[in-house]
């Protein structure tokens, strides 16, 4: 049973990072439930129970607004990410929801060609299974480091 869930989560997460890394940001909010939480924070803040995120959204609408702002309003140098994900570790599951934790490693490739380790950390997720088409109800992106180089424009 676990293996089925791992496969399922793996599959969705593969599609999620592919969506971001290929620049199809408009499709990114669709990985989430309408009522969702998406937060990027740091291991220190998370450990200390500090609530604020570098990004904090509690609706899919706010995720759409992020993308619209990145496309239309914000000014930043062109860059792309390359995500590498570990295997999801299933924390809890029932017939409706799965909680999982997945390590990530993100390289950032700047316009000029420089490739750097931009962030490492873990996704703390709650997926709603929706009968085989899981969507994210909550994703807390816990970055290992508290330092963000220059800016964080694209989602993690």
């Amino acid at each position, binding site marked *: 049973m676990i293996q089925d869930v791992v496969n399922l989560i793996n599959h969705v997460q593969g599609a999620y990072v592919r969506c971001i890394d290929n620049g199809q940001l408009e499709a990114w909010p669709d990985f989430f439930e309408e009522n969702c939480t998406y937060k*990027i*924070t*740091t291991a*220190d*803040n998370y450990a200390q129970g*500090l*609530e*604020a*995120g*570098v*990004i*904090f*959204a*509690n*609706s*899919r*609408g*706010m995720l*759409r*607004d992020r993308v*619209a*702002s990145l496309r*239309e*309003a*914000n*000014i*930043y*140098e062109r860059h792309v990410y390359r995500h590498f994900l570990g295997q999801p570790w299933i924390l809890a599951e029932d017939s409706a929801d799965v909680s999982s934790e997945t390590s990530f490693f993100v390289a950032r490739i700047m316009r000029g060609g420089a490739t750097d380790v931009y962030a490492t950390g873990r996704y703390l997720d709650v997926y709603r299974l929706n009968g085989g088409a899981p969507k994210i109800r909550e994703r807390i992106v816990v970055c290992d480091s*508290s*330092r*963000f*180089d*220059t*800016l*964080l*424009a694209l989602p993690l």
Partner: protein
Amino acid sequence: MLDQIIHSKSEPGHIWPSESLTRVPYWIFQDRDTYVAEQKLIFQGPSWNYLCLSVELKNTGDFITTFVGDTSVIVARDSDGELYAFENRCAHRGALIALEQRGNTKDFSCVYHAWTYDRQGNLRGVAFKDGIKGKGGMPASFCMEEHNPRKLRLAEAFGIVFGSFSNDVPPLEEHLGEEIYSRIGRVMNGRTPVVLGRFTQALPNNWKLYMENVKDSYHASILHLFFTTFELNRLSQTGGIIVDPSGGHHISFSAIEPDAAKDNEYAEQDIRSDSEFKLADPSLLQSFKEFPDNVTLQILSVFPTFVLQQIQNAIAVRQVVPRGTGRTDLHWTLLGFAEDTPEQRLVRLKQANLVGPAGYISMEDGCVGGFVQRGIAGASGEQAVIEMGGADTDSSESRVTEASVRGFWKAYRARMGM
């Protein structure tokens, strides 16, 4: 010929090109000797430097490590209830005394040879001071009282803790002046601050380029397109710039007109319906009325490197830490208050999206300094033109001015003797 080139290479720096505050030479952002002089004359000189919030050190024994320029500093609360600050540098051979960013301790012990310090920064113990079996040990003439790390003077303004290495700097309140001091009080407003989160933004530029940016009210509506793109600009706003007499401290503020403010408790009503781009979830900007006045934005800076920000209900302190001529760390501490209702707290969490490394209106500030640093790389002999709004450093009702940027350079040059 080669001699000439080498000679002229070291030539351009070090002389300010003109008396006027409207020109700033680019070597000031590049020159290593200038950076070293700043540490001495500004950060270790007669400045009040932001250290932390008093509320971060609630209990006896709480400590944090922070920075004054390059210098690592420990702030600790001792059993007498007072805060003390001293250099995080062992008096023996210079190792860091405290490695952690925060914690609680009875005393501090250097890991290298276990010299110990109390929470006031006094040297209290030297391992094997008397040697072993009568052999070795420190000479009898060694006096521990003469070997303390440097201590800082401390002062608080409304729960915000500042420190100074200088005995000459006037008391904090006087140093800030009534206008700046009272507007720090306006934001803190007698409440108990609560840290909501901390982040560090690594900036690829000289620290002064970030301070220029903070004081530059001219760029705000041009570089930051979030509000204009979503047509979120307020119906009618007044505002202005306040520059203190030294030039080094400033406030930029805007307020909604009292008439518009009346039926305007929630920003939602300001959102134009005919905008091409609309927020799918406008709750991002549903503010609550936090202050008796109608000021919705107040950016306040204290020379050299402190910023207190109120953007609607997003309150934060920013500490700017130089990391070499072309590197700067910007430490964000996002604040709420113990008095917040759960609904108000949620508003702050949402509005935190406006600021920080991913901030809708501040992510640009994280990269624009780097654009300048790279832009001027081959132009140390050239100068910036800072003439918007004239040549003075006066307070004004217009924010289409670079008066507070000129103010920064006025204070900077006075301190650096340039």
